[in-house]
């Protein structure tokens, strides 16, 4: 290689610098690698000397000298460790500098000392021969790659897909053995006696009656109606078909009080019942719990703490005293029980209180606190989440919590709960929030109809009977709407309105209760007022219709039992002995009332 005119002094100097830099870089490289390995291997807090000293100290905890020795050794070890780390970093910088110097010198030499091109030598390479060889090499490489990948695929294949599918589909053989972990998915198979968990058998003596819909993972509508699975009973319309309901009791004297159980945490949610188990929730600012109570004995069978939910906000939701942190009632389909709280935490528990899934729906933007109760249709959990931002109604898979559908709603915040009714032609999900009463398909979330007829901060839920939906709200209207393909307002009235209790209707009558304690009866079809009666006490609990009687409980806990008829007739007046905001739940022969602190079972 020939060179241009050499500039000896400068170039020689640059060459020397570059050689020096290269040697320095190599030495540094070796040192950095050695030091790095030392740092990686070092475990300064677990040296044999330290372990021996710690053991000594454990045997003689009062020995101040050993304690001091531990501290000294610990300090030394840490110093050594961090110094080594510092050395690696500083070495890195020095290495960079030396390489920069090396490159600069070499490039400077290249620029100052230009290489001449090589003189043409030899014959040009044999193009065609080379080309054939290139093709061969490509073919061989391709074949090699193919064989290698096939071999790799064969060696690493272990039917992972099948394993996952089998594991995902198999019925649980045992319940969650890892408390609170949510590691077991509970499907309908959990109705079977669990291996190694006899409690589940004992806890469900009536499990034989809990027949699920054949070949499905949800109960039939008939089965739902045999229970009290949600706020205001099956469908959430305030009607129960249970019979032999008590009409007389006294909480103070204990008359007809079968048992009374204190609920650990406060909550304004009402009891829901499946077979012989009652489900409630309670919450404070920092704690949320779900309770399962034996309907026969009043014993709390299990308490499930709702925590460790991903996305659960750390801040406390702003709620009013009347709403509290656990206002929404639970719901169940007999396989799992579902609860939602004021901070948006939503949980599904199996019937033994083990978490199946949980999620946070986002802190509700709701100035009084979220109070809309849950309801279940088939295996879809329906949530009315009418919040300030992004109001919506959604259906989640009861089994997995995954969203099945979600429908955005152009409404204001609502505190009402959804109602689910069978119109004879279809199942309709009915919701109430300013400005409308809207109807959805509970399976798909598709809006079927809506009618603008309500305004304000809607608290009362809807009533339904014989194809007529009744909506009401304070400072707005009482409206009777004929449902179906072409809904229309049949009649309206604004003489008596409610802002908390929900109305209840029979085929003939509508019973409305104002929150200041006046009950009013209307002709359901025509809107004619039949009677009104002032109980003298405010009412937050929603009236329930059972065996031709209307059960109305005021805030002081006094239950007024009136005949569901054209004329007012008081059948009973039964004090609970403590205040209540909650709506009663019913089984054959029993009423379950949640007071401010206790749950009561009333039976003859």
């Amino acid at each position, binding site marked *: 290689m020939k060179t*241009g*005119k050499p500039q000896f002094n400068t170039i020689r100097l640059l060459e020397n610098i570059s050689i020096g830099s290269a040697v320095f870089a190599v030495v540094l*490289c070796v040192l950095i690698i050695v030091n790095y390995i030392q740092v990686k291997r070092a475990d300064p807090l677990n040296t044999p000397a330290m372990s021996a000293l710690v053991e000594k100290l454990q045997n003689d905890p009062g020995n101040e000298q050993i304690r001091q020795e531990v501290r000294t050794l610990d300090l030394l070890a*840490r*110093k050594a460790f*961090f110094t080594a780390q*510092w050395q690696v*970093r500083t070495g890195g910088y020095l290495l*960079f*500098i030396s390489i*920069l*110097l090396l*490159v*600069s010198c*070499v*490039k*400077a*030499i290249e*620029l*100052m000392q*230009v*290489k001449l*091109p*090589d*003189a*043409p030598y030899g014959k040009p390479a044999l*193009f*065609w021969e080379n080309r054939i060889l*290139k*093709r061969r*090499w*490509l073919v061989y*490489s*391709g074949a090699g790659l*193919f064989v290698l*990948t*096939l071999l*790799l*695929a*064969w060696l*690493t*294949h*272990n039917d*992972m*897909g099948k394993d*996952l*599918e089998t*594991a*995902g589909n198999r019925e649980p053989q045992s319940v969650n*053995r*890892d408390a609170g972990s*949510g*590691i077991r*998915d509970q499907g309908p198979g959990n109705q079977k006696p669990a291996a190694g968990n006899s409690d589940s058998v004992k806890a469900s003596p009536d499990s034989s009656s809990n027949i699920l819909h054949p070949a499905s993972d949800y109960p039939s509508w008939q089965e739902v109606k045999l229970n009290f699975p949600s706020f205001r009973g099956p469908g959430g319309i305030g009607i129960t078909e249970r019979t032999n309901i008590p009409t007389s009791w006294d909480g103070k004297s204990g008359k007809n009080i079968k048992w009374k159980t204190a609920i650990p945490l406060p909550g304004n949610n009402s009891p829901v019942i499946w077979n012989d188990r009652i489900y409630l929730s309670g919450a404070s600012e920092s704690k949320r719990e779900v309770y399962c109570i034996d309907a026969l004995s009043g014993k709390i069978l299990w308490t499930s703490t709702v925590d460790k939910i*991903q996305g659960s906000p750390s801040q406390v939701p702003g709620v009013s005293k009347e709403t509290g942190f656990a206002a929404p009632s639970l719901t169940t389909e007999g396989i799992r029980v579902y609860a939602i709280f004021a901070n948006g935490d939503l*949980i599904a528990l199996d019937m033994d209180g083990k978490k199946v*899934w949980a999620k946070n729906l986002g802190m509700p933007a709701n100035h009084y606190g979220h109070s809309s109760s849950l309801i279940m249709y088939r295996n879809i959990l329906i949530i009315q989440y009418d919040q300030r931002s992004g109001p919506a109604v959604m259906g989640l898979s009861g089994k*997995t*919590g*995954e969203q099945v559908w979600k429908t955005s709603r152009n409404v204001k915040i609502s505190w009402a709960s959804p109602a689910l009714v069978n119109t004879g032609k279809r199942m309709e999900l009915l919701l109430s929030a300013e400005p409308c009463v809207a109807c959805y398909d509970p399976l798909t979330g598709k809006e079927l109809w809506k009618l603008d007829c309500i305004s304000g901060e809607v608290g009362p839920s809807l009533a339904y009977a014989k194809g007529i939906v009744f909506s009401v709200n304070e400072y707005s209207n009482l409206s009777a709407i004929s449902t179906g393909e072409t809904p229309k307002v049949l009649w309206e009235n604004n003489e008596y309105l409610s802002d908390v209790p929900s109305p209840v209707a029979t085929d003939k009558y509508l019973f409305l209760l104002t929150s200041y304690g006046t009950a009013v009866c209307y002709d359901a079809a025509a809107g004619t007022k039949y009677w009104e009666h002032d109980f003298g006490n405010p009412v937050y609990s929603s009236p329930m219709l059972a065996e031709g009687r209307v059960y109305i409980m005021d805030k002081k806990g006094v239950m007024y039992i009136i005949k569901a008829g054209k004329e007012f007739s008081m059948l009973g007046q039964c004090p609970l002995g403590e205040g209540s905001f909650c709506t009663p739940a019913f089984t054959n022969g029993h009423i379950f009332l949640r007071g401010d602190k206790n749950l009561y079972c009333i039976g003859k």
Partner: protein
Amino acid sequence: MPKPVCVSPGLTVTPLRKTAGTFMLTASATLLSTMAMAIQRFPKPEFESAYTQPQTQIPLPRGEFLAYLDVFVLFASLCLITWLVLKKRSRFWVFFMSLFSLAYFGFYREGCICSIGAIQNVSLALFDHSFVIPLSVIAFFLLPLVFTLFYGRTFCAGVCPFGAFQDLFAFKPQALGSRLNTVLGIIPYLYLGLAVLFAATGTDFIICRYDPFVGIFRFNASFGMFLFAGILLLSGVFIARPYCRFLCPYGVLLNWTSRFSRKHLSITPKECIQCRLCEHSCPYDAIDVPVTTKSPETRPAMVKKMMMLTILVPFLVLIFGYTGSRLQETFAGVDSRVKLAKEVLALSKMQDAGNKMQDDSYEIKAFKASGKTESQVYSEASAVLKKFYVGGWLFGGFIGLAIALMTGGRMLPVYRTDYVTNKGRCFSCARCTDYCPVKS
């Protein structure tokens, strides 16, 4: 005024070159002095007195304006480098341009976002519509390709910081041999296929994870990456730009587009005088020699081979696609969702067998706290596996097709009388122009 030492019309030690050499030394000295003043990012823990935890540092997101400034700098750099390569035909200025790019896109911008990595953002955005891709990323992906389509790989010449960095170390480049070049040329296709596969399935951005130079640009290389970069740079002393030639996935796209470039760098600005001075000037083996002789293979034999290959292409695509699909579990094993499902499944099996539980891993703890169910985890993992099954077919098919086309490309007839740059492989570094005695 000193006269320039004239060796050949393109090879002169001008005062400018001398000044440039001095500039190199001065610049490096300035950088060194700046580094000497640099302070440690975190103070060393002090254990002799009351130790207070340093406040957590959360880097602020880069301002939108700066992102667009980067796009502007990229565009301006591409314009300038294209002018330097095609009009000025100056290796000297291309070198300095590459130093600027190394400083700006490399050390100042810390190698992110880069056009190479942008492949993954684009892939993910194409397959996952919930992924929002910033306009600046699209610009970084498309601008070099557009310039290449018109002017060849000028981006590689002096804008890509990776290329510029490796170019600094090409002290003694040796010819690698055309056969080895061809075979090693399969690797970028593999890397591109894998990068798209992992990005499209939402598994990982492997180009970024295994980027050898970003750790150096940021002064925080892990040991493995430091070693990888060291090996690449050391080998780069003899095999110029090893990453660009035998790894770079973006290079595959640039190679394709560059083949169609209308105005590519030519060795000679006028007519080639067959002096052969440029024959060994390219450190990247990207100069195609004249081919004036006929192929020793007869035309009917070549036609027969071409026809056979045409028939074989679908077959190759299928068998490679099949092997790719069979690798679904291997590929999916990288995905965190699949890893978790495997761990949960193993845990579940241990529980079923009644074995004593080990301490939960962090992943299992996080899973337990998430509120997810086993079946959710399994179904997520199954979905990932299915994606990799389809992706494996596409990836394998792509590799099969690439090998078939590379082989087929070497069956086409060739006739050329001049020494020319190989449009696909040439980085437009303009070294060869210095060797050509013909000047415009």
